[in-house]
């Protein structure tokens, strides 16, 4: 379990990093926390010829509120979110999620943006990005572009990131004061990859649900929105029966994968339970 040979570059500026990515294209990977990339390299499942280590680029280590958004830089570690990074329900939800990401030592190294770039199907941040309508800010040597979360995930460990690009920042729109979030996941062991998870966001205005988003993770190749369940909730009073129905709907319409840890049927049951729990958490917040 030793990685194949690779070159390691540790630029001190974003411009240098982007220049290296431009030069090496598909051969290069960005190294931030390394908590997923390095093990996959040790197994030789990932074999980048070049690592562009961004850990010396201090300006990338930020979590800031600006222009109605929460902007999360490429070096913001998971542990940072364990305490409220922004006031209100969004910060509370992010903190709740952060405590479920692996174990404390990994949370001190691994990064939010790294999780999104790695796109593990069972990543909490990936499901959260989908539920929270994240936008990915991609930098390359000659410019910037943004990709919405719904267009970002393109299958297992696969994203819209192009060669030469780096996920510089993730932008989460700050929700309305009436917004509430919920999160539930099921893992065999504390800190494990979840067998199923649900991240929920919705507004409660005048006793009715608006703008509900339900993202499911851990069940297939990439996080997905439970659109039928979201539609069911729209404009309705969140009765216990309605939440149960939404949970059942999410389970019915999802397409869970089977693996040695869980048959598809079991994952489908978990989806119902996790959606129900996340919704209850949201409406009771």
């Amino acid at each position, binding site marked *: *379990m*030793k*990685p*194949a*040979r690779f070159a390691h570059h540790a630029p001190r500026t974003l411009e240098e990093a982007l220049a290296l990515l431009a030069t090496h294209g598909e051969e290069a990977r960005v190294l931030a926390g390394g908590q997923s990339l390095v093990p996959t390299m040790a*197994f*030789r499942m990932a074999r980048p010829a070049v690592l562009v280590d961004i850990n010396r680029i201090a300006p990338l280590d930020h979590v800031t509120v600006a222009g109605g958004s929460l902007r999360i830089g490429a070096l913001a570690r998971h542990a940072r979110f364990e305490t409220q990074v922004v006031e209100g329900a969004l910060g509370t939800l992010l903190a709740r999620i952060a405590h479920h990401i692996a*174990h404390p030592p990994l949370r001190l190294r691994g990064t939010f943006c790294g999780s999104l770039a790695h796109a593990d199907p069972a990543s909490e941040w990936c499901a959260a990005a989908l539920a929270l309508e994240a936008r990915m800010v991609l930098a390359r040597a000659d410019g910037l572009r943004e990709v919405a979360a719904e267009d970002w995930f393109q299958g297992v460990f696969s994203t819209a990131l192009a060669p030469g690009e780096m996920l510089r920042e993730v932008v989460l729109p700050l929700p309305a004061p009436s917004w509430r979030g919920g999160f539930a996941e*099921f893992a*065999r*062991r*504390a*800190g*494990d*990859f979840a*067998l199923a998870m649900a991240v929920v966001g919705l507004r409660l205005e005048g006793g009715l649900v608006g703008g509900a988003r339900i993202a499911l993770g851990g069940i297939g190749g990439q996080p997905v929105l439970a659109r039928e369940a979201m539609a069911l909730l729209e404009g309705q009073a969140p009765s216990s029966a309605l939440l149960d129905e939404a949970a059942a709907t999410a389970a019915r319409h999802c397409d869970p994968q089977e693996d*040695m*840890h*869980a*048959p598809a*049927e*079991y994952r489908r*049951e*978990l989806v119902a*339970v996790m959606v129900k729990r996340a919704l209850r958490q949201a409406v009771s917040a």
Partner: protein
Amino acid sequence: MNWVGRRLPRSEDPPLLRGEGRYVPDIAIGARAVRFLRSPVAAGRILALRPPAEMPPGCLFVTGADMAGVQPIKPGLRRFNYRAVEQPVLPTERVHFVGQAIAAMVAPSAALAEDLLETCELDIAAEDPVVGFDAALTPGAPLVHPIAPGNVAVEGELRPEGFAETLAAAAHVVEFAFRSGRQSAMPLEGRGGVAEYDRATGRIRLSASAQMPHQLRTGIAQLLGMPEADLQVIAPDVGGGFGQKIALLPEYPVLVWLARKHRGRFAWVEDRNENLIASAHSRDQRHALRAGFDAEGRLLALEADILADVGAFSVFPTTCAVEPLMALAEYPGPYKVPAYAVRARGVLTHTCPMAPYRGVSRPVITFGIERLMDRAAAVLGLAPDEIRRRNLHDAFPARSATGMVLDEASYIEALDEAMRILDVPAFRARQEAARAEGRYLGLGLSVFNERTGYGTPAFAARSMDVVPGYEVVDIAMLPSGEVEARIGSSPHGQGLRTTLSQIIADRLGLDPGAIRIIHGDTDRTPYGWGSFASRSLVIGGGACQVAADRLADKLRRGAARLLQCEPSEVALRDGQAVAGAASMPIAELARLAHQRSELLSDAIGFNLAETGQYDPGGTFSNACHAAIVEVEAETGHVRVERYLVVEDAGRIINPMIADGQVQGGVAQGIANALFEEVIYAPDGTPLTGTLADYTPPTCAEIPEIEIHHLETISEATITGAKGLGEGGSIGAPAAIVNAISDALSPFGVDVAEFPATPPRIRALIRGRAPRA
């Protein structure tokens, strides 16, 4: 001052906690790295095997053909239709499991060796593999080894006359068929070794993460046909073994062969993936039980049909019979079983070979008989503790159905004590209230005995070619008054340096700090059997006591000469030899014995050295475990709310170390019950090659373990101590799964497989409504 019985901190710990332990990878620094090419298929014929066209300087590629003349690994057993399967150190013709080492690549660094392995030419004509019992036992199935017809490597059967009639006459016949998942012992440190050629002497020093250094030495010397005297084996700090490091697996003879042939220093440090797929597995068993009870719930007859998957080969020295035959011999456990019939088969498959793992089949048979007791209790309308009480041995010594002598123990007392501590009526009330809220709590018991500290007579009965058992201890007092005890046991986490020093200190009237325990080095210790089978404190400790008593006699004789009294008048205490009002420091006596021998030699000769030997017949410790769990019906998640152990291991030498053994064992048992399983795809590919897929629990999943001790001092051992290294893991699967079954009783289901994972629990209760 008595040291035995005190919670003396482990003298082993400070360097380990400071990161100053010395493990194989520490010793490997600077050696040439060895990595193994491993079979990607479960069964097949090797058509081509070649190194990369360009081998960089300093690199070597070694195949079985290069090692011609090296003998295959072939442990022997003279009974039970044992088929003496041979394992070539490196195969030249066929591969038998995914992960089997085929060739060794040597390079200046492990990374370069792995690079080179990627460009080796390996062409294997894959054949249909035999994976799982059904595939192996189907008539006409391919044979894993032609020498074993029907893929049965070993088969034992006992059937007393009139058994069928006894069973047929029973008022109630209860059946239970179940399966236990395959496990890895998962030591924190994997295997590994460094073999080094000494140019001055021509000897090889092998430092290996091993439990049985002397056996490794003897076994490797035999395989390689080299003088045993030319091989020194050292077990340095070893990060856990749990049985997995007993086996002489192929990597070690390859390292020694390399060091001899190429006169250098070669190191292999196993990675976790290798450990999970190619070090030994265990516990892959399927049992069917039938038991006849009389109307009062007394067991009349027990019938067991045992299948144990032994993998592709038979490991040295224990053989692949160790699991099926342990199950055969010990199924009745602590219970009176008037009639016992059993058939046990070891079944060959194209999977990783099996070796002993903490408990060796007893976690599985305890699961079987304890689930059976709960089922019978339900049929008979008895409480789980009551049916056990009616069947436990209560007069000692007792003789088991297979002829083992059960020494003085506390089977019923341990159960009663557990029931008293638990307050079962209060639990039942809580359970009922919780059920009304849709929460499912359960209480599970597990009563068992644990055969420990068994010496040569017990092992000889197994008829293995290599019969372990005795221990020898060489003890000597230095001129300074410090004591060195050289032991054949080989501790690797058990705290034996501390406990043995407590035993010796008491016999010599010294502080344990004055006692040095020397172990794990074949050049410096007497021939012995290492540490396994809950034996070292009993047997090594007994030999230490014998040796220390002899040394104490010598010291008394010497002191008597100097103090001008009779030896019987001399007491050794607090570092002094005391006779009435006269006394002298023992250290002064030691100095005089060596440097002024003219004063003492006619009383004690020219040294303060003695040898102790000990070879007991064996003793049974016992315990009652109890678990309270909550099962979440909608997810199948099991939370262990409380775990209680009432343990009787005779005289406890160091309660802190004893508790540590129990806690670690229970944690592994809970892992066995709920979390860990080695899974193979139907084509023989292991799917659980990382710790993301093979899932040992963390401290978050293991509850605090509550331990109470009883101390029944039997005559079976000279120290009064019984072994307890395995009990934790033996008792836990039954206690946990009985608790789950109790929790789920409103659903009318019964758990017959472990690990009892959440998907399995959901599959049991899916579509079933709980009874009100």
